[in-house]
């Protein structure tokens, strides 16, 4: 294997692996910026992966699968809102509860909808596109699934919504100081519900990317803690869209390198490489730990007096 194809291969797979992480982290960004830590992310991505797969299987359309995952993810976000915003219960426990519920529900439904399968069937996944195949040398990097290209639009859009629109200002306001925002006439509950729906939708698409685009299949280990990596990424990204991009690419490169390192013949058990992204995440948090300050109202339910 020559060096050029090795480097290009790592870059291409970094972009591919980073895509679901960036979708998930952007989703969490909307939730946390509005003042809700959404630990339902792992379950929402899992449900997105399953529902996207199931819809794509029965309709034969991967695009409909992703749309379905978007909608079901948004509903999961609203469910999180019911507990954390409407009822104002503990965000840690309700988020974990949503993850447990959605994970169990996906597995339950996978057996009910696909009875008799030991391993679920594969689906025709979205073919990758390569609009820039003609570019010399760099061409192979651009062979990506269309959802990766969608990120090129969504990242600036998320930045624009959060920093350049009234709605984004409201999200950030209710995430920092809900009392003041309420005093200024912002509907705290509605803003948080909307932010959670957007966030949940993005998480659902992130999960569906794995099943519908990358793998064309669904298995119980499909998310494998990627949601929790996103929760760490958001700290690393300092709760900013641009940080989400860099963090996503950095972590994506670790997941991508994990596969290449195994082929280099280092004398280490292959599980070391599989565990690497999780270990690196913890180390990164240790370095980011002291200086990070998240949105002030996260974890604090708002009660209107």
């Amino acid at each position, binding site marked *: 294997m020559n060096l050029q194809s090795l480097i290009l291969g790592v870059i291409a797979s970094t972009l591919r692996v980073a895509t679901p992480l960036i979708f998930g982290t952007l989703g969490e960004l909307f939730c946390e910026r509005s003042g809700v830590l959404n*630990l339902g992310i792992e379950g929402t991505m899992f449900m997105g992966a399953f529902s996207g797969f199931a819809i794509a299987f029965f309709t034969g359309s991967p695009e409909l699968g992703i749309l379905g995952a978007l909608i079901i993810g948004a509903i999961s976000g609203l469910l999180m809102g019911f*507990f954390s915003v409407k*009822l104002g*219960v*503990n965000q*840690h*426990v*309700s988020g*974990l*509860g*949503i993850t*447990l*519920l959605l*994970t*169990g*529900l996906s*597995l*339950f439904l996978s*057996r*009910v909808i696909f009875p008799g399968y030991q391993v679920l069937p594969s689906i025709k996944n979205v073919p990758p596109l390569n609009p820039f195949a003609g570019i010399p040398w760099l061409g192979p990097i651009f062979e990506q699934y269309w959802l990766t290209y969608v990120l090129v639009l969504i990242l600036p859009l998320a930045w624009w919504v959060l920093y350049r629109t009234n709605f984004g200002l409201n999200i950030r306001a209710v995430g920092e100081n809900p009392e003041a925002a309420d005093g200024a006439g912002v509907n705290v509950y509605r803003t948080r519900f909307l932010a959670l729906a957007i966030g949940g939708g993005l998480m659902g698409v992130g999960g569906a990317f794995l099943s519908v685009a990358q793998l064309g299949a669904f298995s119980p280990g499909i998310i*494998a*803690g990627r949601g*929790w*990596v996103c*929760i*760490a990424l958001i*700290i690393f990204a300092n709760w900013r869209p641009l940080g989400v991009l860099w963090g996503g690419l950095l972590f994506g490169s670790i997941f991508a390198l994990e596969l290449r390192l195994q082929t280099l013949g280092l004398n280490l*058990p292959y*599980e*070391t490489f*599989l*565990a690497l992204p*999780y*270990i690196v*995440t*913890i180390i990164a*948090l*240790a370095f*980011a*730990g*002291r200086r990070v300050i998240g949105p002030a109202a996260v974890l604090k339910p708002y009660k209107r007096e």
Partner: protein
Amino acid sequence: MKLKFRLERTPSPFWMIALLPIVAVLITFIISTLLLLLAKANPFETFYYILISPLSSRTSALEVLVKATPLILTSSAVTLAFASGYWNIGAEGQFFAGAIAAAFLGTQLGGFPSYFAIPLMFLGGFCAGMLWALIPAWLKVKLNVDEVVTTLLMNYIILFFLSYLLNGPWRDPVSGWPQSPTIAPSTMLPKLLERSRLHLGFLVAIAAMIVVWFILSKTSLGLRMRAVGKGKDAARFMGVNIGRTLFITALISGGIAGLAGVTEVAGIHFHITDAISDGFGYTGIIGATLGNLNPWGAGVAAVFLGLIATGAQSVSRSMDLPVFLGNVVQALLLLVTLSIILLRNYSIKRVT
């Protein structure tokens, strides 16, 4: 005369609080009915198999306690942590740490009598769970790293470590299965009753639950723990060393979760595989919440969760429903309980 009622924000009378768990179970099963109709199963039959059938024979009723044993331990571990303001979501990983220690010690201590080997196994499991809780606790206290994420990630890391052990040094040389060697007979936990799988681990679990209750409500350490749990600012004002208290909390909690790994390896399976946990660490979070962060409540909740788990197995055998129904019902019960626990602060008043 027309009767009018309204909800008033005053603490509920005792009879209402006592009714809340029953209401929670009812609502949970009403929601589950929707799922069962989707799966074309008879809800009444399902609920019979989940709630009643396991209690209808001696064997299956004792099996509920067998299932509850690790859950009592993880629920107690999580109760201690959450009541002290430390969000230990890593009981699952700490469970595996204890299980790996037990699988290792079980093959090493065969030459010793049981009364020496078994306590050493529990000690080893406790230390292993503590060790796995150490890194997140240290990062939390020294570098202010959020423990929720780190404890969660540690759960995945230990699974890779176990996978390495099972595919490498511990792989069964004869069958080639990824399963550790069987532990020595003298390290297997003795059975408590004839014709049942109920083992010594159940008593250890009850003892651990009582120890958690004792620490939290009868010691000055527990007083400091609960102060930190109530609010870090107030605790600091009281002169509590918050970092130290959180650190100790994390280690004890991790150790207790590690004991659960010992009970499963030395009491039930006698070897370790990667499928040894049915999400016991995560179910411990449900148990702790259902028990309202009270160790006795957590113990009762753990037995009830054990009932649902046993029932889900009998449902999947008798009615061919996915065993994951149990996980769904447990998670629903958690969310419903979280919601209706708020009603504690209300009472129904007649408007005159």
